[in-house]
């Protein structure tokens, strides 16, 4: 019995000394972990704790067990927000990734001004989302540019920011506009990594451009497509700023409720509304964690679908 601890104590100083000898390296990576721990991990764990409590942000925190989740299951607004999120996500991600692929192929072929185009397509991604949303609002509002053009063409006017479907289309358009360039740049990097001799060999064997695209480009690009699909799932299902700015409304009554008929209420916006407008932090945390689970499920499904083709 006494032998074991003695063995342990003999081994430990050596290990500690070895770890200590790397202290400059540990110190160098420490800032990330300290900041991550304080500003990311801490709040994440606290939100998990809050999901089982009731709290108004100032008073006492009260343990309520699974009650918040029981409310959530019976809350039609949560299910509506889930439905909205999925519709907006499909409306934005599918056309966005297809368009990004086409753009990347074009960028890859561009001979002149190629860095200008690359920059131009990436600019939307680094533009302030709030500024974009305000711009989209001006374009799509009842008396905005789009309706002015439609009026000029004698087409029926559409309440872009009041019709249940139009609202979703506008949000999806905004998200596509912002992320298409980003995805195109990622695809472009993937395209440039494909060895040219493969294309040359295919050409010699008599393959046309369409055949080359489907038989060589797409299969070799699969890991990159997988990456963009998963990233688009994670970001697209967390849409928040777009509907928040478009339908924030400066009214003190019922803010951040997702616009007319709550058609633009996404899961994350609903979480924000519950926590920061209604001051129900426990319920907000429960929504946030449910959103996390939903996103996890969809990310895994997408990953399985895209990855399966690999065999």
């Amino acid at each position: 019995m006494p032998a074991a601890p003695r063995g342990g104590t003999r081994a430990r100083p050596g290990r500690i000394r070895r770890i200590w000898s790397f202290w400059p390296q540990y110190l160098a990576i420490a800032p990330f972990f300290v900041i991550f721990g304080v500003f990311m991990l801490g709040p994440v764990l606290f939100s998990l704790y809050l999901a089982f409590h009731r709290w108004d942000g100032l008073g006492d925190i009260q343990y309520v067990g699974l009650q918040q989740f029981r409310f959530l299951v019976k809350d039609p607004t949560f299910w509506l927000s889930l439905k909205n999120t999925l519709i907006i996500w499909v409306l934005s991600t599918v056309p966005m990734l297809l368009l990004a692929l086409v753009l990347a192929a074009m960028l890859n072929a561009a001979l002149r001004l190629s860095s200008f185009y690359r920059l131009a397509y990436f600019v939307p991604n680094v533009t302030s989302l709030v500024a974009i949303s305000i711009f989209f609002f001006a374009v799509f509002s009842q008396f905005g540019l789009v309706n002015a053009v439609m009026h000029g063409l004698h087409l029926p006017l559409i309440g872009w920011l009041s019709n249940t479907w139009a609202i979703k289309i506008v949000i999806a358009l905004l998200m596509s506009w912002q992320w298409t360039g980003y995805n195109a740049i990622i695809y472009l990097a993937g395209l440039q990594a494909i060895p040219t001799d493969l294309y040359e060999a295919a050409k010699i064997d008599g393959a046309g451009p369409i055949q080359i695209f489907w038989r060589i480009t797409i299969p070799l690009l699969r890991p990159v497509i997988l990456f963009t699909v998963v990233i688009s799932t994670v970001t697209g299902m967390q849409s928040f700023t777009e509907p928040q700015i478009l339908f924030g409304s400066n009214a003190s009554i019922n803010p951040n409720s997702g616009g007319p008929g709550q058609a633009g209420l996404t899961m994350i916006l609903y979480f924000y509304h519950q926590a920061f407008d209604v001051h129900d932090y426990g319920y907000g945390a429960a929504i946030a964690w449910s959103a996390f689970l939903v996103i996890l499920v969809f990310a895994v499904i997408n990953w399985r679908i895209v990855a399966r083709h690999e065999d």
Partner: protein
Amino acid sequence: MEISRRRMLQVGMLGMAGATTGALTACGSSSTTSSSTKSESLSLWYWGGGLSDKVVEAAITQFPNAKLKTQKIDGDFRQKLVTTIAAGKFVPDITGIKGEDIASILPNANKFVDLNTLGADKLASQYLPWKWKQGSTSDGKLIGFPIDIGPTGMFYRKDMFAKAGLPTEPAEVGALVATWDGYFEVGAKIQKAYPKSFLINNIGSIFQMIVGQGTKRFIDESNHFIGDQDHIRTAWDTAVKAMTLGVDAKINDESWKQAIGNGTLATEIGAAWHALDLSDAAPDTAGKWRVAANPGGPANIGGSFLAIPKASTDPKTAFQILTWILDPQNQAKGFTDAALFPSSPATYKMPALTSGDAFFGGQVTIDVFSPQAEKIPIAYEAPADAAVSAPYFSALSGLETSAKNADAAWADAVSQAKQIAQRQGVS
């Protein structure tokens, strides 16, 4: 390579030294705030337009010993205040509280100084009783000292009324729209003269106004949900009626700003401070607007408070500054500078308020608002009131955009409001 590694070590050491000194200073400052009783300076938090900037500046020179530091907080004011109070550091000595937030802050009255203990009760008679009650807890502690109030009126386009063959003078118009039905008839006449115009921007604003005109809201004083009762149903039915009559523009977003400017909207109902929104949104329509008494009687929308958090180092001086900023004289300045409608009736007779407003063609708007201000009904507003009312507003805006049945929408709104009430601990 050798040099770069040494350099890196030096930087690392510097970084560590920095972290240590940072920690030491943090310790130092925390110990001084907790032990010392002498305060170096007092701080005041408010939002842009929440107080008159001129009065705030004057307060700094008026109380030189307090070394008052003022800070305008942008964004979600309640959120920032609550987070700071919960953290317990850098808490302001005096802070604004918005009208829509006061009810949900009152349950945490223990985080604030009861202003009655500092002598606020002696000043109570100078301020409107219903407003005073709004800032007090049910057991009589005064948490929020009245800044301004939001008595409501009906803003209307005089030129459009004239063309529609309607009376144009505020007194006559006020009599015409005394009831909601009278108001809706005005809408029909406007639409005969202006087929593309509407009476009101959305029906949520009618619902909000009618609820504000009553003495009961969504939760009663014994913490029961009453949002399914007649007083709410009547407000709902009246709002829906405006839509079925076709006088509702169904505008639920910022495009009402354009609608105000281009004559799509002939009237607006809102608080006195809404006049500033109108003149900001449509400066070109200056002189065409007038304001008359509101359909259905007086109501209040918004209006803020000043409070002193418990963490304040010198509540007595803070209270002196607070009451100076909000005394009847300075409330008159608040009205001129920031359109803050005074909560002290004595101010209503001061020249700053009795002069005409150019945006309203020289009309003395106080003549419309001040009789309303003193007759505003006292209704109990529960901490969860705003949260519980949300489904009604969502349902009304939903009705405006889809062909849903109004009774089905009512049933959905009530069942959702009940669930929110349950979540918020209302029985």
